[in-house]
């Protein structure tokens, strides 16, 4: 068994909600709750879910861009406390993130070479070393060195995203978090970027956390998948198992809602959204929208349970 590149225990992210005249904290919004997973070396772990379910918050919390309220992190066998500034700099040496939007995540007033050079210089590399490293990374993501002297606006969305990937890769991280990297791109360009990511995994031995709402991309790329709803893990297992025989009603609904080219079988739309329902205080969080809801679903705390080597948070699987 391969060693774990990253282990997260009970990660919770809470945002204080301020209000009133004095801006006091009135209550907390929990974006990610009791999130635990481990990432093996060289593995691609996908996190899927609807918009607003906490996927991006999870990604940002891992690199310290969102408040880390609770939880432990073990990165490459070393325990860190991401709430401390000192540990955060160490974590960021091993773990980097690629941003969702390739248009706003590159500074419009810096050339590609500047964008890639600054992080290296800040890390203490010399200019010559940096240039060498930049050239290697550019060829890894499939861009020519001509790109270096240009500004980001001269590139297409897919090329920009590859620049973004290159920027995360120049510091040679061991874990790369991809936050919806393909969602802003055309389908044909998505394929290029996915190919690049797969290439990186094989060549550089990097583990990937791939956050997406696109089931097709996840099926094509990932090894394991976490299905997330309102900050909680609903189902977790290998891609083949979870996507072909989903256990959780939410996963089923997500898979059914994928648009297909087959007009005979239109996608089934999952009714409602979490915002209009509010977050249930007890029981299953998905219960208000669940088509298979029973009276037991809204009571107590429902734990993650192992069902056929897949972890699932649903009481409906207990009887079967």
């Amino acid at each position: 068994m391969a060693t774990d590149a990253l282990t997260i225990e009970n990660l919770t992210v809470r945002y204080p909600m301020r209000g009133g005249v004095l801006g006091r904290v009135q209550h907390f919004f929990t974006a990610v709750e009791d999130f635990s997973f481990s990432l093996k070396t060289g593995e691609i772990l996908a996190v899927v879910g609807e918009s607003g379910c906490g996927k991006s918050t999870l990604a940002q919390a891992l690199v310290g861009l969102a408040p880390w309220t609770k939880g432990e992190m073990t990165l490459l066998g070393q325990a860190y406390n991401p709430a401390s500034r000192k540990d955060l700099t160490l974590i960021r040496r091993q773990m980097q993130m690629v941003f969702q939007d390739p248009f706003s995540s590159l500074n419009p007033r810096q050339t590609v070479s500047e964008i890639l050079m600054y992080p290296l210089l800040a890390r203490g590399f010399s200019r010559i070393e940096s240039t060498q490293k930049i050239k290697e990374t550019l060829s890894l993501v499939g861009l020519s060195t001509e790109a270096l002297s240009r500004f980001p606006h001269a590139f297409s969305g897919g090329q920009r995203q590859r620049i973004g990937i290159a920027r995360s890769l120049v510091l040679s991280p061991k874990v790369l978090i991809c936050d919806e990297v393909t969602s802003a791109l055309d389908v044909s360009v998505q394929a290029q970027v996915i190919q690049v990511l797969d290439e990186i995994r094989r060549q550089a031995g990097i583990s990937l956390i791939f956050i997406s709402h696109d089931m097709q991309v996840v099926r094509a790329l990932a090894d394991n998948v976490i299905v997330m709803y309102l900050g909680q893990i609903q189902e977790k297992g290998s891609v083949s198992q979870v996507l072909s025989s989903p256990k959780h009603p939410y996963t089923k609904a997500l898979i059914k809602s994928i648009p297909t080219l087959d007009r005979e079988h239109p996608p089934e739309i999952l009714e409602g959204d979490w915002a209009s329902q509010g977050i249930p205080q007890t029981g299953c969080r998905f219960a208000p929208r669940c088509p298979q809801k029973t009276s037991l679903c809204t009571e107590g705390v429902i734990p993650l349970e192992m069902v056929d080597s897949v972890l699932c948070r649903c009481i409906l699987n207990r009887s079967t």
Partner: protein
Amino acid sequence: MRISQETKNKWIRFRKNKRAFYSLVILVVAYLASLTSPWTVNDKPLVMLFNGNFYFPAFFHYSETEFGGVYNTEPDYKKLLYSVDADIWVIMPPIPHDPLKADLSLEGTPPFPPSASHLLGTDANGRDILSRLIHGFRICLSFSLCLTVLGTLLGILIGGIQGYLGRYFDTLFQRGIEIWSSLPFLYVVILIGSIYGRSFLLLILIMAAFNWISLSYYMRAEFLKLRSMPYVKAASMLGLSHRHLFFKEILPNALTPVVTLFPFTLIGGIGSLTSLDFLGFGLQPPTPSWGELMSQGLNHLYAPWISISTVAALFITLLLATFIGEGVRDAMDPKSGDRYE
């Protein structure tokens, strides 16, 4: 450093605005020309041939004894020209009048109306108005430029830090600025001027202490907006320092209000120096200044050439600067920026 396409586009848009572009050319050329005024608008000859030797009195200091005088002081070259019995030949500057010296060769009491030797006449002390206007322009614009640059730097720094840090610091500073900006500026100038005396540097410092406020509001807003941009977050995640984030990531994208406000702040600087001089709280007399000329014009209404030429000069300068400001503002307008052509 390479200039980004966005900046180039802005320059192209500015150039397309003929009025603004030519205003900029005229103002820059006029200012550069006025910088030579200590030599070209003066009563010392540029070149003088005296008994077979070349002298350059406009650029170097010679004592009277060299030309057969008694004292070690600088000679009055105009007098020298007529009085000395020697082989003498000179090239005088284009406007051969010192802004500080009265023309004593004219008969009667000043102010003298425009004539061939004094194109715009003289002021109430017999000093050439054209010469004083040119020297005044140089001093006034230099003053305003220094003031604007200093105020802009302060505005960027204070507004930027406010916006960059945000939270309590921002609120605290904002209240502080409100208190500071409610201080009556004129009284502070009079007060400090009467304690420490009036000098070019002191006046700039006092005025810059109030000048940065309006820009800091814009900078604060820009920094608040830009600090949550993904590229800034990305840079912070990549381990770059706060200084890098401030100066390299955010500041180059936050320069629009700086550039847009620059010409208008310049106008404000000219206006406030002129009005302070007019009230007599500005630069120490006899420094050539437009405000002082205007107050002379007011005291000698029977000599309209004083106020007419001064007001015209001020009007044209402010108009040119306003045209530039207008052009810059239009070129910086983000709504016209993203259009495909």
